């Protein structure tokens, strides 16, 4: 029973990381209607920046997180401006391939800068472990911080989207780009802003991911990236609560599947659930079904 509980907790922790990454995918997809495949690699860069700041420059972990967020935000805006903006009018497939190229580029840059050997990431939290049930169950401080960070980000982002002018502009652009432009909304700025927020979140997710799973490599971001994207689709792409629910469920399924079904089939299980959900609810759990006018 206690073991099950601790699986649930690590599932929630992993799910929280997926949810934060999924937000980046979901927002970008909702607004720019593109699959930003490089998003997973922004996570990796975020983790490396934080790693370098603490290891090479001896910075305080919290300061390293701030640096990492700033760097990733700039990186996100740069990627968008350099590679995606010129393709606003191109087919979605062309943008997808460019995003894949961007992903290769980031991975290989990281490979050149930091090398292929895995770096051992020191947790930025490091507050020890919480023992419950007379020491039978341990909850690491990383887990608690991850889940808390997830909650704070979700609340902040929901408020931002619903209450601020920029948030409203984002919703308008995701609904109808042309109409938003006619209403005087600066579409390019809004899209850049979305990339900035998504990349900042990616930096946080990267640091949290590597705090819990400390091995850091140039390819660290790709698999969590793909899974987080499926989490976004799972919950209903474009929806913030969808990303939260999708991420958490995916994390739970993965941890429980690995624990109780088979360690090797955990990923297969995650994707099987995704397929079933999409077949039953083709727009994801919380997505809106769009009717095609005939």
């Amino acid at each position, binding site marked *: 029973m206690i073991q099950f509980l601790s699986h649930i907790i690590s599932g929630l922790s992993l799910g929280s990381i997926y949810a934060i990454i999924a937000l980046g995918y979901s927002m970008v*997809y909702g607004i720019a209607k593109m*699959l930003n495949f490089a998003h997973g690699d922004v996570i990796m860069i975020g983790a490396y920046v934080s790693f370098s700041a603490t290891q090479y420059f001896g910075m305080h972990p919290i300061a390293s997180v701030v640096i990492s967020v700033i760097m990733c935000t700039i990186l996100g805006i740069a990627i968008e401006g350099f*590679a995606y903006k*010129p*393709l606003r*009018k*191109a*087919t*979605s*497939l*062309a943008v*997808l*391939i*460019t995003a*894949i*190229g*961007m992903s*290769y*580029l980031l*991975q*290989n*840059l990281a*490979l*050149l800068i930091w090398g292929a050997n895995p770096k051992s990431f020191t947790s930025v939290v490091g507050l020890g472990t919480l023992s419950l049930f007379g020491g039978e169950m341990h909850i690491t401080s990383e887990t608690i911080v991850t889940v808390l960070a997830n909650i704070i980000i979700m609340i902040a982002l929901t408020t931002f989207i619903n209450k601020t002018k920029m948030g409203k502009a984002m919703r308008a652009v995701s609904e109808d780009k042309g109409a938003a432009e006619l209403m005087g909304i600066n579409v390019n700025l809004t899209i850049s802003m979305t990339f900035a927020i998504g990349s900042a979140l990616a930096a946080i997710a990267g640091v949290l991911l590597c705090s819990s799973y400390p091995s850091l490599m140039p390819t660290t971001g*790709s698999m969590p990236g*793909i899974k987080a*994207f*499926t989490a976004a*689709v799972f919950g209903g*792409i474009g929806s913030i609560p969808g990303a939260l629910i999708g991420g958490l469920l995916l994390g739970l399924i993965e941890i429980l599947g690995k624990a109780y079904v*088979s360690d*090797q*089939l955990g*990923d*297969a299980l995650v*994707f*099987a659930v*995704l*397929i079933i959900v*999409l*077949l039953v609810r*083709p*727009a994801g759990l919380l997505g809106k079904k769009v009717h095609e006018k*005939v």
Partner: protein
Amino acid sequence: MKRKISKTFINNLITYAIVIIAFFICKLALSGDIEGFKMSRSLKGQLIPICVYIVMAVSLNLTVGISGELSLGHAGFMSIGAYAGIVASQWLGSAFPEANIDVVRLIAALISGGIAAGVAGFLIGIPVLRLRGDYLAIVTLAFGEIIRNLINCLYVSVEGGTLHTGFLLTSPLPGKKIIAGPMNTSGIDKLASFDAAFVVVLIALFVVLNLINSRSGRAIMASRDNRIAAESMGVNVTKYKMMAFVTSAALAGIAGAMYGLNTSIEPKKFGFDTSILILVFVVLGGIGSIRGSVIAATLLTVLPEVLREFGSYRMLVYAIVLILVMLARNSVFVKQILSIVTGCIKLIFKRSRRGEAS
């Protein structure tokens, strides 16, 4: 009207001609008959992979370009073909150990690879083709990963003509191991040859080009262009989407079987990265253009070899080339510059022609 038929005919002929001429040039370089015209060792090793990737790209183009459905799990079909081919050829080898039947074994491997992947394509197609657009893409991605995960747990061994299979094993199977879960395949007879791979390329081209220029191909393209209109013209859209999907999967399976009989493989090889790599061939070659797929698959397989002199910057340069090509092909700004340049060239040509005439 006669002109139109002959136009596609000539177009196809050019495609075949390019492939055949390239084959003979390679053969000549391999033979080393001409002084100073020899193929480098690393390039020699790439010949069969190039053929395999051409078939992969051509078959994926059938799904993405002709049928209009983005598939991100094409490597999954390749792996099914590869492992089915290995099992078929190894089983035949152990069942008839004395007979010299390498050609038969190769053909049997290719056919079983094609059939296994085709069946998988059909089974996966049933749920996948109910979805549209990006959701379809995600589900193909998911299936690709599931296939990889399952093969990761698959163990097959062969002993005197009988197959032993196991899933998620703890104890080893009796007989000679041929598939060992996440490990590399080893001890597989390398039955693949450049000639055979070339024939497979020709077959793939023949199937895909003929399919496109037939009633079924038109129905597939009509379903892509406008699903509702196609249905109201009496075209069974699901059937034709399935036809394209299964054909594409089967061809990928054949290519996979060839691949599995050429080098030692592991399930990891057929992950998402490989699916994307093939998609890159298709997009760079031009979506819907079969000849483009052939050329792009060849160039991009050779490119990392050529870039070897860049050393560790190799893949970085590859990524930059990829992004720049995409920008150049699609950006409005670059297009304008290109059109100005071509306009100037045309003008110069016209002038010079007029000059000749007068």
